């Protein structure tokens, strides 16, 4: 960091901070942060400004470490990234204004400014990097937990297995479900599989397509698929979308499905 900036910050710190604070207030209105109480916002500004000023005088490597822990703290707190990026841009504007007042030599001004630019860009880049890294982690984790939701296969009686589907079905999940389903059919030697879609909120053409494909694959490995748990609104959407499920046995409830499955496997329930 150029000694010039350090001395500027030392000599005129209050004036710079005063100006920067005004700019930060503007950032607040652009950022949906208006719902945050004045006190909290004020504290945040103080903290942010103190931190940036402290970065100026710290060794580069050490400063990097500080920045990471600073970022982590506010990522956890859910503070928006744009507050920091816009805040830093404001800081740069303020400093430039001060520099151009006190420095008349254009060449010197430019070189100081490019140093300043590089420094602030470095901080912004690192903040963006930390924030996006965190987002990617979250997305990755949510993907994994969604996959863990994936359908279990429950053998209910000999030759008959039930697979309850819960939640939205996307392509990745559909593929996994299909693999589980087929492996399970072989493992349990099931002749009939009941796919229960009671817990599937929406059945659009894509979901229907996945279900049709799954039941066709089940037929190829040598078992029969019955689709159960078709709620009235699902029946309506299926017909309105023109999806042809006529080739597959369907039943409104799991209970009726099990009755059909018993028939297919030559079994009967009797009261004792």
């Amino acid at each position, binding site marked *: 960091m150029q000694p010039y900036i350090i001395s500027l910050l030392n000599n005129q710190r209050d004036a710079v901070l005063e100006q920067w604070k005004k700019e930060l207030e503007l950032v607040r209105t652009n950022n949906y942060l208006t719902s945050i109480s004045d006190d909290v916002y004020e504290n945040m500004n103080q903290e942010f400004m103190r931190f940036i000023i402290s970065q100026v005088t710290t060794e580069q490597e050490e400063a990097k470490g500080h920045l990471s822990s600073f970022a982590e703290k506010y990522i956890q707190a859910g503070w928006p990234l744009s507050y920091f990026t816009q805040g830093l841009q404001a800081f740069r504007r303020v400093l430039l204004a001060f520099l151009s007042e006190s420095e008349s030599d254009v060449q010197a001004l430019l070189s100081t400014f490019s140093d300043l630019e590089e420094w602030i860009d470095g901080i912004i880049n690192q903040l963006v990097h930390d924030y996006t890294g965190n987002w990617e982690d979250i997305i*990755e984790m949510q993907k994994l937990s969604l996959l863990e939701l994936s359908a279990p296969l429950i053998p209910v009686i000999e030759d008959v297995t039930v697979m309850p589907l819960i939640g939205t079905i996307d392509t990745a999940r559909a593929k996994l479900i299909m693999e589980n389903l087929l492996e399970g059919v072989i493992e349990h030697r099931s002749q009939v599989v009941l796919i229960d879609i009671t817990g599937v909120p929406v059945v659009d053409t894509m979901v229907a397509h996945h279900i049709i494909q799954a039941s066709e694959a089940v037929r190829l490995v040598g078992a029969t698929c019955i689709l159960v748990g078709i709620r009235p609104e699902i029946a309506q959407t299926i017909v309105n979308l023109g999806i042809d499920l006529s080739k597959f046995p369907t039943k409104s409830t799991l209970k009726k499905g099990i009755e059909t499955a018993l028939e297919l496997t030559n079994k009967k329930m009797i009261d004792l």
Partner: protein
Amino acid sequence: MKTQSCVEVKNEWGIVAARQAGRSLSKEIGFGSVDQARITTAISELSRNIYLYAKRGEICLEVVEKPSKIGVKKGLRIIAQDQGPGIPDIRQVMVDGFTTSGGMGAGLPGVKRLMDEFTIDSEAGEGTVIKATKWLR
């Protein structure tokens, strides 16, 4: 890292050899049984096309990598190339059920669905290059 191995396809045995190479390479990379079957089937389709339409050509297999959040993602790329008559209308061959050989017409559109990435480059009289990649999940 880029290792490539090629199998010449000029008769039916070339088809078998190509898919055996694909089967062992996909197993080595760590693909599950379903993806192994997808890759082997795709190779079978592509090599049969070479044999049927271009008489001879080659199937090359390579291990490819791309950066991802969890480090490096591995994949397998099939490159099917020949100096045959080429494909006059690519859009037409990508339609399900279109066939000039009396087959099922599931070949090329099928390969596209089996794999994650699929490109086709063909010029009439010059030959055809088809690249198809499957990424490890």
